């Protein structure tokens, strides 16, 4: 009996502790789970960070190569621009201009000269030489060579000026030669 009592008495506090132990076990597991989750999150975050950094770096490298290619293209275009500028200068060579003037526009070099004096010209140009009638640059010939169309633009203005100048020359020829 006593033993049974003792046992009961022994069992009594154990039974009393049981409900206390259970809540103690639960937080440890939860903490373990929490720490596991935290670890996973940390690893994930690290991996993500690593990915982000790698992506950023690779993007930078990609952009760097792209910038390099673009700078190469820029250099190439600048070079082409330089070549075009040289071509432009060479197109203005006087020998070429004369060849074109003679072959395409039918212009001829003046053989003689006429000194034009008149109000239409600046004072210092009283001795300016213009094409003489005998040079084959008479107004009708000039007119027939005039650019087609309405004659607008710089070429047209230049042409009208040339025709006017040649007419003045012819008129002035008789009195100033």
């Amino acid at each position: 009996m006593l033993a049974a009592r003792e046992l009961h008495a022994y069992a009594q506090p154990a039974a009393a502790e049981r409900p206390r132990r259970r809540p103690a076990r639960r937080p440890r597991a939860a903490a373990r789970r929490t720490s596991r989750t935290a670890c996973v999150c940390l690893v994930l975050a690290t991996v993500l960070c690593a990915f982000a950094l790698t992506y950023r770096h690779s993007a930078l490298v990609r952009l760097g190569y792209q910038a390099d290619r673009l700078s190469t293209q820029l250099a190439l275009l600048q070079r082409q621009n330089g070549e075009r500028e040289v071509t432009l200068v060479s197109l203005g060579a006087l020998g070429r201009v004369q060849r074109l003037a003679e072959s395409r526009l039918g212009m001829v070099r003046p053989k003689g000269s006429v000194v034009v004096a008149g109000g239409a010209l600046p004072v210092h140009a009283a001795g300016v030489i213009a094409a003489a009638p005998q040079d084959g640059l008479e107004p009708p010939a000039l007119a027939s060579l005039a650019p087609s169309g309405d004659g607008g633009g710089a070429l047209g203005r230049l042409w009208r000026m040339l025709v006017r100048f040649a007419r003045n020359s012819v008129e002035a020829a008789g009195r100033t030669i």
Partner: protein
Amino acid sequence: MQISYGILQRRRAGVFFALIVLIFAALTGRLAFLQFVRGPELRERALELRLRDVPIEAKRGTIYDRQGRELAVSIDVDSVYAVPAQVRDKVGTASQLAAILDLDRDWVLERLNRPEGFVWIKRKVTADQATAIRSARLRGVNMTQEAKRVYPKGTLACHILGFAGIDSQGLEGLEFQYDAYLRGTRGWISVEHDARGQEIPQAVHRYIEPTPGLSMVLTIDETIQYIVERELEQAVTRHGALGGTIIAMDPRNGEVLALANYPFYDPNNYQAYPVSSRRNGAVVDTFSPGSTFKPITAAAALEDRKVSWGERFFCGGSLQVPGRRVSCHKTTGHGSQTLTEVIQNSCNVGFMNIAFRLGIERFYDYVEAFGLTAKTGIDLPGEASGLIVPRAKAKPLDLAVMSFGQSLTVTPLQLLTAISAIANGGTLLQPHVVRELRDADGRVVETFTSTTERKVIATQTARELNLSLEATVEEGTGRRAFLPGFELAGKTGTAQKVVGGRVSSESHISSFIGFGPTRDPQVALLVVLDEPTGMYYGGQVAAPVFAVIMQDVYRYLGIPILTD
């Protein structure tokens, strides 16, 4: 005493630990030494393994004419090089390079097999070739930027400009003379490359910027130069001459407006022309001036008052001088002439008499004063000086023939400089072709002005002589150079060439020298044609060329023409 096993173990462990500590200490010490003591040096060496230095040529300065028109420019072009160690498929690479760059495949392969770190494949390639090379993406083959010299006007002013070589170094003409100014300073770019030999972006780049050369503004006028070259070529072709020279100068300040020698060459492709065509004969070659020298004799005698305008000189067709009878070009004689007529008729006998009055010493004094025995000092390379019988050895016969321009030689430039002195009122000026130097921003760094050498003759003497030379064009031997209203003064010249040490009666040099307008000379011009066939007198061959050029130059410069 016996040591227990435990103690032995501990001692061994202690020794082992101490050994380990020592090793680590040594390693740490070595590491510290490498890191802190030799660190910078080793870092540098490691970088050098990855870095490749690529030189960047400085752009040569542009050469402009006096109106600011480009005569020589530099453009950026690509040059192809290879790093042989990085080329894996050498045969394939060589084949591709040869096809793109129009080279011999074996030659390229030989270069790719060289045990060198860097070999040029082709320098200064065209834009199309550069694009093709880039597209081919050949391993170990790269390109660098270089500056290429281009002469956009082709042969124009070739003997003045000269040309630059493959390394942008001046080799001839102004390119050579002013190389130190035009060349600039070469730069470097060090680029970090990866294992494939590709540039690493964002990596270490060391860039030492090249300094572009100074630009140069010449006294040369492109239009006048063109006129001169056009007429020179036509004259040489028309008369079947071996070559020719024309120089135009502003006698007021010694600025050379144009200088041309025929045959021309294209400085863009100078290797394709014979070396002889690259000679700037106007400056480096001498010739017998013949009668174009006579104004010098006349000026000397007038200045020394040994002759006067009212005096008369008789020409019987020849003159006996000690040692020989010297003939006039008109063997029947010119008869009695005034000094103006002596000049107009270009009478040799008359000039011999004038020279005898002057005497050897004074004649030499004036020849030297007119700068005919020394270099003019023009800023062009290789200038020569004329040859003359040494003063101490000169005899009356030498004086007689020198008075009309034989037995002495001058460069065309020397002669024109001397005549310019007569044209401008008696002042000898140093000729020059460079007006100013400018930096990359267009600021003037240095200006070259005319240098007065000396006053040779009085202004009055020069004016009187100018009028006499004008009469020579109007009524004398230079009639074919006459243009009404242009006020041109000048003198013809026909000299026999010395061939094989003997004066040849077959080979001549025809020349004409003159200037205009007489009362205010703005342009002095010398035309020299070497061995024209058929007609050979200067008045027939060179004078018309002078007239045509002057006509165009007057028109271009807007020089007024007298209407009376």
